[in-house]
């Protein structure tokens, strides 16, 4: 509770000094002011533009996130269980991984146009690598003895995957997923900034084009809100899927 009050105080201090500095100290043209931004934000909500554009970004992010994560988990699992294949594909994967995925955006625009598909694919590509690499490490980190003990119980590969590999890699998968949320938004927003007439990225770009600083900040707030909501959703899913983790965290630590 004290933490909450402390945070509230910090926020209040920032917004108050912003509000009072805007005008006497700094040109409002550049920094706008919290009140002005709030007004623009309410305007955006009231006119329905925020939700119309926000919805597009949400769809792009979620669909891209879903397919990127699904592909990342699948490929991570397959390569994690198949050392030879992993070795064979390593140079290709490493070179694509080292490429900033945003640099692929122009190519994707040429291939898929400026519609929603291009943003989804860009988002999925970014998410794929983060989830893939984490899943792969997670699968490789599974204890070998654990697997042998199950083999002695007569386990086949599918038993090993469902009973040991997946649950033990899931913590790593979630690290990848949580890491991916802001990057998934990069895919969607950058895609929209580069080429679109819809979405929060477009709203942002449009406001900047009209030199509407308050509008830019209002769009940024919308993006932050979206990111926080996504992050919370991934956390909730994690707690739901890993009940044992909660028990472990609650245990008293001793060395």
């Amino acid at each position, binding site marked *: 509770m004290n933490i909450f009050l402390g945070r509230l105080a910090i926020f209040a201090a920032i917004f108050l000094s912003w509000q009072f500095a805007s005008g006497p100290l700094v040109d409002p043209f550049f920094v706008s002011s919290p009140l002005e931004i709030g007004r623009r934000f309410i305007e955006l909500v009231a006119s329905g533009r925020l939700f119309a554009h926000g919805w597009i970004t949400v769809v792009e992010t979620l669909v891209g996130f879903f397919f990127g994560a699904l592909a990342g988990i699948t490929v991570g699992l397959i390569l994690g269980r198949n050392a030879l294949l992993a070795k064979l594909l390593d140079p290709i994967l490493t070179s694509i991984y080292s490429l900033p995925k945003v640099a692929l955006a122009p190519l994707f625009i040429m291939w898929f146009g400026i519609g929603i598909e291009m943003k989804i694919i860009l988002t999925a590509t970014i998410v794929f690598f983060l989830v893939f690499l984490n899943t792969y490490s997670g699968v490789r980190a599974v*204890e070998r*003895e*654990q697997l*042998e*003990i*199950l*083999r*002695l*119980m*007569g*386990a086949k590969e599918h*038993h090993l995957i469902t*009973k*040991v590999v997946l*649950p*033990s890699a*899931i913590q790593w998968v979630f690290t990848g997923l949580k890491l991916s949320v802001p990057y998934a938004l990069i895919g969607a927003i950058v895609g929209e900034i580069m080429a679109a007439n819809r979405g929060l990225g477009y709203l942002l770009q449009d406001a900047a084009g009209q030199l509407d600083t308050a509008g830019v900040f209002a769009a940024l707030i919308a993006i932050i809100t979206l990111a926080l909501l996504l992050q919370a959703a991934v956390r909730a899913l994690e707690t739901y899927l*890993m009940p*044992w983790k909660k*028990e*472990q965290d609650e*245990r008293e630590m001793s060395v």
Partner: protein
Amino acid sequence: MNSPHIAIQSRSSPISATATAPTVVSFRDVSKSFTVKGVAKQASHSINVDIQQGQLVTIIGPSGCGKSTLLNMVAGLFCPTTGEVLYRGEAVHGVNGRTGYMTQSDHLLPWRDVAGNIAVPLEIQGVPKAKREARIRELLTLVGLDGHEKAYPSQLSGGMRKRAALARLLAYDPETLLMDEPFAALDAQLRIRMQTELFKLSRQLKKTVLFVTHDLDEAVALGDRCLVFSGRPGTIVRDVPIPLGDDRNIIQLRKNPRYHQLCGDLWEIITPDHDA
């Protein structure tokens, strides 16, 4: 060769009824080498031993002498470099599903509660849910874990984790139990309790047990027979019968002069230079 060895061999009392039981595991001139950085290192050699059904055989010897390797070869996790490991007369190839393994670390799945962990082998065997639950209840009672079925491994004490691992091991009813210092990490009282229960269970369920330990007292208290390994490259230097009977009380053994005599004899075998 000095006197203690002869003393042991001359005391050739039969090892209860199991001495005439069929052979389950045979090692025929087995050796095992591992390649470390391109250099082959021999871990064990010339291992020849027959283990009869229902025997509890303890295995002692210095670290790195190939005791665990022996268990791994019975389980089919390692192949012998030379020689043959026979299980019921047939060479072991690949994973030997008639054995169950328990190591010092219990390898419970942290994401499953106790009941869930015991269920793993039953799920693999495709036992239907109702039957599975009945069997789990039975096993929980057998190992004394009633009321803890919903606890996660991280919430259990070391002894309870061992019990859970033992219940899981017994769930799929392997014919032979391979135990690699399973109780090493437990405190003394708990270790004796687990020993008592293991001994009782092995008799009750008529299991063949190969039990690796560092603890000489444990080797004598539990064993019908004790195999003594030499240092690396290891081989079996003594096969010591332990005629303490099927109805031994492991706690009361501490007051049994026969037990102390056997422990003393074993000490002399593993430290042959002691009177030099």
